[in-house]
C-alpha cells in the first residue's frame, strides 16, 4: 500500500515524539471492592498505566522544557528525584498544560525490569497458586502464538495462534453487555450473515457434488457448479434447520462471521460441574489450543511491553562468587498474612501484589514461625520475606500476575542479602569491624570541611551500615 505523500514538514511532524504519544487508554474498571466507598482511593496506583510517561534531560528540566507547548512550572517539576510526568492535555481552554506525576508506573516498570522475568501466557484458572502451574505455559513471544500480521481471509484458519480478535470474548461479557452487543452489533448484520451462510452452503454443495462426480468417473467443469441463485431452496432450509440443532457448528460459523475470541471451558472443574459433567460434553467441540481462550484475550500485546525476555533460563553472575545456581531472590513485603478466610498470603513484589503458593512448602509449614502466618505489630516497617519470582503474565484486564516459586535457597538468600549489605557473609563480616580512623588534626579538618549534605544518610537511610 503506497502511503500518501506528505510535505517535508508533515513527514517530520509524523515522526516527531509528540505525534508518537499514544492516545490514553480507558481507565481500568474498578472491581466491586474498590467501588465501595471505604476502600476507594483516588491516589492508588491503577492496575495499568493509561497515559504515556515522559521525562526530560536535567538541564532542560531546569528551564521547564519538556518539549511541550509551554514550559512547565519549575516548583512542581524540578524537585522530584524521579522526573516522570504523564501529560493529560498539552493545552486546555484555560491555557494551561494539564500534567501529573507519572513516577508511580515509571518506577514500577523499572522495578519490574530489575526482576528480569519473562512474560508468559496466563496460567489455567485457579492454577496460579500451584508450583506446577508453570509447566504448560510458554513465552508470549513464541512464533506460533504471537501472530500479529494476519490477512482477513486467514483469520478463521489462525484462530489458535492469534491474540487479537475484532469480536468480543463472550465468556467475559456481562448479560447487559451481551444484550447490548446483540442489539447494536449483531442484529444489523442479519442479511450479511445470511449471505455468509449461503456462500458456505454453496461451497459445501459444490465440493460434495464434485467429489461424487469424480468418484463416478464423470467429468466436472465450472459450468456444473451451482451458485447462490441456483441453489435449491429446500437445501438451504434443511441446512439452517440442521445447524440450529448443532451448537458446535453454529458457534463455529458465528465465531468465524463475527471474529469472536475463542472460548474454552475452565480447566479447573469444581464438584458441582463434575457431578453434571454431561452438560459440558458439547463443549468438547469448542476446544481450542489458543492460550487465551480460557481467561480471555489480552487487550494489548500479551507482553504489555513490560518485558521482552523469552525465558527465565539464565544464570546470575556474582562479582565474587561467580555464576550462581539460583537467581537472586527478592525481598517481598507481606501485605496481608494468611487468615482463615484467605488461604493465600498477599505479598508485594516490586510494587505488584502477588499471592503465595499452595501445597507443601516452607511458607505453609505450621511449625515454622513464618511472618506469613501471623501479623507482628511490633515489627518496624512490616514483615518482609525473600521470595523467588519465576514468571509473570498479564491477564485480559491488564493486571500483572507474578508467579512465585515455592522454595528459596538459603544460600541464594544469603548472597542476595550480602549484596545489599545485610548479610553475614564475607562482606558482612568485614563491615562488622569498621576501621577506626586515626584522630589526627588532618582527619579532623577533613571531617569538618566536607560538604554539608552526606546524601541518603541525612535522611536516615543507611545502606547496609551496622549501627554500633
Amino acid at each position, binding site marked *: 500500500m503506497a502511503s500518501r505523500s506528505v*510535505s*517535508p*514538514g*508533515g513527514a*517530520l*511532524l509524523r515522526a*516527531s515524539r*509528540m*505525534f508518537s*504519544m499514544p492516545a490514553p487508554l480507558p481507565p481500568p474498571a474498578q472491581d466491586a471492592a474498590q467501588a465501595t466507598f471505604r476502600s476507594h482511593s483516588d491516589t492508588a496506583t491503577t492496575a495499568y498505566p493509561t497515559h504515556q510517561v515522559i521525562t526530560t*534531560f536535567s*538541564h*532542560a528540566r*531546569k*528551564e*521547564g*522544557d519538556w*518539549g*511541550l*507547548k*509551554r*514550559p512547565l512550572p519549575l516548583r512542581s517539576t524540578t524537585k522530584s528525584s524521579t522526573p516522570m510526568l504523564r501529560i493529560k*492535555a*498539552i*493545552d*486546555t*481552554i484555560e*491555557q494551561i498544560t494539564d500534567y501529573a506525576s507519572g513516577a508511580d508506573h515509571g518506577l514500577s516498570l523499572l522495578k519490574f525490569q530489575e526482576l528480569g522475568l519473562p512474560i508468559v501466557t496466563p496460567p489455567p484458572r485457579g492454577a496460579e497458586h500451584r508450583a506446577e502451574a508453570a509447566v504448560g505455559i510458554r513465552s508470549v513471544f513464541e512464533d506460533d502464538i504471537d501472530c500479529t500480521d494476519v490477512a482477513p481471509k486467514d483469520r478463521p484458519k489462525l484462530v489458535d495462534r492469534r491474540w487479537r480478535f475484532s469480536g468480543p470474548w463472550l465468556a467475559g461479557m456481562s448479560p447487559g453487555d451481551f444484550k447490548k452487543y446483540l442489539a447494536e452489533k449483531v442484529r444489523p448484520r442479519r442479511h450479511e450473515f445470511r449471505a455468509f451462510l449461503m456462500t458456505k452452503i454453496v461451497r459445501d454443495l459444490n465440493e460434495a457434488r464434485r467429489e461424487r462426480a469424480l468418484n463416478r468417473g464423470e467429468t466436472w467443469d465450472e459450468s456444473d457448479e451451482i451458485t447462490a441463485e441456483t441453489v435449491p431452496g429446500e437445501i438451504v432450509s434443511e441446512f439452517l434447520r440442521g445447524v440450529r440443532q448443532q451448537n458446535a457448528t453454529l458457534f463455529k460459523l458465528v465465531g468465524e462471521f463475527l471474529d469472536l475470541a475463542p472460548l474454552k471451558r475452565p480447566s479447573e472443574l469444581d464438584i458441582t460441574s463434575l457431578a453434571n459433567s454431561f452438560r459440558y460434553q458439547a463443549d468438547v467441540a469448542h476446544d481450542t489450543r489458543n492460550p487465551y481462550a480460557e481467561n480471555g484475550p489480552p487487550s494489548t500485546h500479551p507482553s504489555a511491553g513490560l518485558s521482552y525476555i523469552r525465558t527465565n533460563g539464565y544464570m546470575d553472575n556474582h562479582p565474587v562468587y561467580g555464576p550462581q545456581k539460583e537467581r537472586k531472590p527478592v525481598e517481598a513485603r507481606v501485605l496481608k498474612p494468611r487468615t482463615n478466610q484467605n488461604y493465600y498470603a498477599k505479598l508485594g513484589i516490586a510494587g505488584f501484589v502477588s499471592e503465595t503458593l499452595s501445597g507443601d512448602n516452607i511458607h505453609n509449614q505450621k511449625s515454622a514461625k513464618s511472618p506469613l502466618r501471623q501479623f507482628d505489630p511490633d515489627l518496624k516497617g512490616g514483615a518482609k520475606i525473600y521470595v523467588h519470582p519465576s514468571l509473570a503474565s498479564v491477564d485480559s484486564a491488564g493486571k500483572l500476575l507474578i508467579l512465585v516459586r515455592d522454595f528459596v535457597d538459603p544460600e541464594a538468600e544469603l548472597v542476595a542479602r550480602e549484596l545489599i549489605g545485610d548479610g553475614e557473609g564475607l562482606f558482612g563480616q568485614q563491615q562488622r569491624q569498621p576501621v577506626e580512623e586515626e584522630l589526627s588534626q588532618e582527619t579532623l579538618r577533613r571531617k569538618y570541611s566536607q560538604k554539608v549534605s552526606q546524601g541518603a544518610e541525612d535522611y536516615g537511610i543507611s545502606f547496609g551500615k551496622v549501627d554500633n
Partner: protein
Amino acid sequence: MIIRNFGLRHGRQALSAPPSAPSSCLRLLSTQKTTTTTTTTAVAGNQEAMEQLAALSATHAAREARLAAKRQQHEIAEMPSKFKKFIAYQKQTEKLGSEVERRYLPDEIIRNPPHDASLEELMAAQCHMGHHTSSWNPANSRYIYGERSDIHIISLEVIAAHLRRAARVVEEVAYHGGLILLVGNRKGQMPIVTRMAELAGACHLFQKWTPGCITNKDVLLAGGQLKIVNERDEELGGFEEHLRDCRPVTPDLVVCLNPLENYTLLRECALATVPTVGIVDTDADPSWVTYQIPGNDDSLRSVALIAGVLGRAGERGQQRRLEDAKQGIVKWQTPRDVRGYIDKANSLAAEEAKAEREKRLAEGAVDESGLKPADLMTEDEFLAEMFGHGAAPSKY
C-alpha cells in the same frame, strides 16, 4: 643412540632450559641497588683490621655516591629528549578515542543563535504547537496544518517561510539605518530580548509598554537622551542646540514576541505607520502585526529560536551597513529635521561669514580687488610663467 634423532631428543631440553646469560644480564641492568654486605665480624683488639675495614667501606661509599651523581646527571641530560618524545606521543594520541558531543544545551540557542532555522530546528523548538482547538482565531487557518491531541499544529513550512521574510525585513531595516525596538514582556523572555537586541544593535523592552510612548511621545519621552551619529556610528558634535529642541524618536520597526499582551503598542505602531513583526499563535489576531510569524509564543525555546534568527538578521544588516559606510556608500537619508537644522546652521554660518567679510572690507583690511591669475597657479606653473616654459626644472 641414533645420531639423527639427537637433535629431536635433546634439542627440546636444550631449548627449554632457562637461558642463563640473559637473566644475568637483566640482573646487571636492574636499577635496584644490591645491598652491600660488609663484614662486621671484628675481632676484639684487632685495631688494624678494623681501620682497614673502615677505610674500605669509606671508599666504597664514596664510589657509590659518585655513581649516583653520574646517574642523576645522565637522567637530567636525558630529560629534554624524553620530554620531546612525550609531547610527540601526546600529539599522536590526542585524537584517539571518541568525542562525547552534547547535542542540546538550553542556553546555546540564546548565546549562539542560528542564521536560519531549519524545519527540524523549528520542530525541536516546539514552534509548531498551537493552542487548544477551541481557542483558535479562524484568521490563522491558513497557517494551520492540522490538529493533534486537541491542539492546532502550525505548518513548519509556513513558519520557516514567514520567519525568513521577517528576517529579511529586519535585515534591510538595519541596513538602512533604521531604529529597531524589540519587545518581549512575558516571564522568562528577558534574556532572549536583551541578547537579540545586543546582536541586532536594537533597543529592547522586557517590561510593560507605557501606553502613549509613540502617540504621546512629546510628553512621555521629553528629556530623553539623544545623539547624532554619522554613517560610521561616530557621535557628531555641534548638534547640542538641535538635540535640546528636537522631538523624541519613533522606532522604524517594532518586533513583538508576544502580540497578545501588547495590543496598545501594536495599535500605536499602526497609527504611527510603524511596521511591526510579531509571533502569531493560533489564538492571536494576525492583523495586529504587519509581518506575521506564525508559531508558538508560549514556549521559551520557540521564542528564543525565532528571536535569535531575527537578531542574527539584524546583526547581518548592521554589519553590511558599516562595511558599506567605510566605502562611502550610505543608503539612508538624514532625517528631515536634522537636515533642516544643518541647512539652517550652514546658512547662518554663511551669513555670519559674509557679515564679517563686509565688516573687514569696510575696515579696509582686505584687498577686494579680486584674485590675480597667479593666486590660482601651482608652484610649478608659477615658476614656468616666471622663467619661461623651457626653463622649468624637470620633476624627474
